[in-house]
């Protein structure tokens, strides 16, 4: 329960901003993304179920959907909703449970009140998981994220990495196939889904036609991918909320877009294979948009000076393209790039502070 105590001296008025206000706003900004994630996950599932026909192996989630008697040949809004919830709720529940247990253990041990931010971390983490992610991987990733990404450093505001980002990175590195295997993208075992970026690696721009992906479908989010990352439109709605409430830095977001455009243009001039992919495709494919808005802008672990935010953004945006075109085994590249950018943030700030001090010394001199 939050209480409003009176101020004791100047300034006598205070803005209604506190850690819990910030986190509530961040969760609120994620609402459109969650809605898009649920609907698209269900929609992709129903589509795949329709085309896969008898070849599929029925697991419990398929049976649940079958129990509702959903007609997968004519996907309706309700059917997509149910199918989506069936996939997202177990992952979210396991993430929240394992994160909550870690938080609880540390708060009990340290005799401090429990911080509620694990809910936000679990939500972001879940949205960065594929629909058919193993629940064991979810639990392992989340526990690592909470313990080594947050609790050991003292909790909210003292982290140097976004815990959700660290968790996803750990799962990605520890279980390379777990987050890039083909069956994962729709939630049906035996169905040959595919990350469109790795398909692009193999087949070039023809892959886009083969999967029937237009720029607009990728923008609106009716493609396969990590659950929360497919809809750039929903992400942009969230970005408007975060920037309007002045929680996320618009400099950091625009910096990433500019960095991405710059490096993609350079790659275009070199040409060949995925190097030919133009910047506007880089923007909407994979989890770039989601990462740029919800993961990179975590205030505690990004650069804290305005100049630093430009630089960090450009580094992260450029690094996304670099990893995408160079490293086929990390077709998305966003998680790795954000990890690198977050680690660089204190260094970038340090340089900005050094320049500020030097400039000040010169003004006096």
């Amino acid at each position, binding site marked *: 329960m939050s209480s409003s105590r009176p101020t004791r001296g100047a300034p006598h*008025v205070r803005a209604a901003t506190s850690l819990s206000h910030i986190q509530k706003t961040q969760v609120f900004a994620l609402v459109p993304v969650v809605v898009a994630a649920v609907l698209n996950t269900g929609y992709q599932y129903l589509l795949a179920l329709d085309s896969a026909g008898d070849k599929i192996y029925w697991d419990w989630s398929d049976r649940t959907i079958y129990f509702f008697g959903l007609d997968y040949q004519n996907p309706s809004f309700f059917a997509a909703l149910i199918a989506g919830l069936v996939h997202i709720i177990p992952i979210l529940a396991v993430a929240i449970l394992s994160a909550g247990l870690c938080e609880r253990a540390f708060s009990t041990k340290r005799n401090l009140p429990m911080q509620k931010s694990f809910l936000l971390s679990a939500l972001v983490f879940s949205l960065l998981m594929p629909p058919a992610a193993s629940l064991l991987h979810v639990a392992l990733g989340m526990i690592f994220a909470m313990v080594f990404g947050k609790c050991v450093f003292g909790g909210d505001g003292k982290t140097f990495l976004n815990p959700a980002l660290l968790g996803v990175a750990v799962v990605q590195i520890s279980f390379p196939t777990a987050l890039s295997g083909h069956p994962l993208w729709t939630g049906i075992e035996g169905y040959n889904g595919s990350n469109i970026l790795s398909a692009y690696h193999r087949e070039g721009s023809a892959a886009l036609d083969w999967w029937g992906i237009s720029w607009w479908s990728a923008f609106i989010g009716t493609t396969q991918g990590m659950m929360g990352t497919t809809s750039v439109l929903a992400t942009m709605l969230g970005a408007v909320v975060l920037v309007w409430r002045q929680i996320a830095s618009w400099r950091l977001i625009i910096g990433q877009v500019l960095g991405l455009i710059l490096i993609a243009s350079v790659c275009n001039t070199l040409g060949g294979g995925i190097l030919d992919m133009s910047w506007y495709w880089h923007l909407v494919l994979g989890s770039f948009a989601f990462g740029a808005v919800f993961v990179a802008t975590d205030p505690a672990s990004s650069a804290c000076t305005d100049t630093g935010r430009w630089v960090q953004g450009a580094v992260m945006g450029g690094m996304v393209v670099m990893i995408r075109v160079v490293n086929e085994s990390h077709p998305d590249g966003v998680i790795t790039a954000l990890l690198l950018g977050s680690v660089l943030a204190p260094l970038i700030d340090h340089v900005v502070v050094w320049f500020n001090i030097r400039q000040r010394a010169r003004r006096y001199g």
Partner: protein
Amino acid sequence: MRIKVRAGLDLQLGDRPATKVEERKGSSRAGLLGRDFSGVKFDVKVEPGMRIQAGEAVACDRHRPGIMFVAPMGGVISAVNQGKRRSLLSVIIDVEQAGDESKRFDVPDRLHRDAVRQLMLNSGLWTAIRKRPFGDIPDSDRDPRALLVTAVDTDPLAPDPIPIIRAYAHQFALGLEALSAIYDGPLYLCQPPAADIASGSPDRVQRVEFIGPHPAGLPGTHIHFLCPIGFDRGEVWHIGYQDVIALGHLLNTGKLWLQRVVMLAGPAVAKPRALTVPLAAATGDLVRGELAPGAVRVISGSALSGHTAEGAEAFLSQRHRQITVLPEVDSILTEPQSGGVCDTGLGGNPGPLIPVAQLQRLSPPGILAVPLMRALLVNDIDLARDLGALELVEEDLALLTYGCPSKSDYGRLLRTVLEQLRKEMA
């Protein structure tokens, strides 16, 4: 010259009525506040029961006996209040009928450096000058690198200086002339745009227009743009426009100007308006009959940088040009009002410093907000100095304290750092 301040924030605390100087309101008591003069050790020369005339010395600075603090009104001393570690809280005077009759001072025939300085010291007007770094009263034998007259006010609900200066144009010009005599360096008049208020003042006065949201009107902002200061790099002085009028009045009549024009405003004021009130008046007398029902907090000064006027300090500070009254949050169980800035609520629980994007916008110009806040939080005085702490005093960081989700008081932290730096410099 015109300087545009981009970042900042104008708090919306309700209507700001037009500034008029006609309406008057009286007070039966006056108080000299110790907190107006940070860092001063007072040598109090009066005792309760003594009868005193306005302008007579009440106290002096123990380390610099030439610096006098004079009675703001005439009457009988009713109390000398001491606070922690025998610091002076206030000297309270019960005003008598002829209390607005000031002691007469000898005005020099010709304005020159030593004569004006001596007159200002004797009349207590020297204590209206502040210096940076540290924001205390300057030594009377030193020269600043620049002297700034602050004639722009962007504090929330502050009065508009222009009508006040127009009403006392002659005194203001005379005051500027006297200030230009006390030293030879640059004399800046920091004012709002497009107002010709310096007519008849000496050529040496350089007009600088400041536009933009708060903190465009703070001396710290002006100093940053006009004459930045650092370690071992001299000092800058600044003085408020009403004190310049008081200096002009003194030169004109030989007596102190025992009035100030203040704005009485805030969400809990029934009829906000400007008033001409006695110097250092008791705030209880000034707000009587003016308040909306309910618990309120009466603040001498602005909601951002004033002090709570209660107990021994329930007086209008001589530095302040406004009285703000806010509804008081008195229950610890009320939910914080989201987006509401109109009461005295903390607006959430204290927590860690989250460097949200908003903080840089609330920062004084040229200051890296979050690195400075972190340096202050861990009391890193070297880094804080390098990041520009010497340019600042408490009021410059008020917006950061207002907007920071951690609910830390950066003004208080800055003062701790400044006190340590002062010891190092001495």
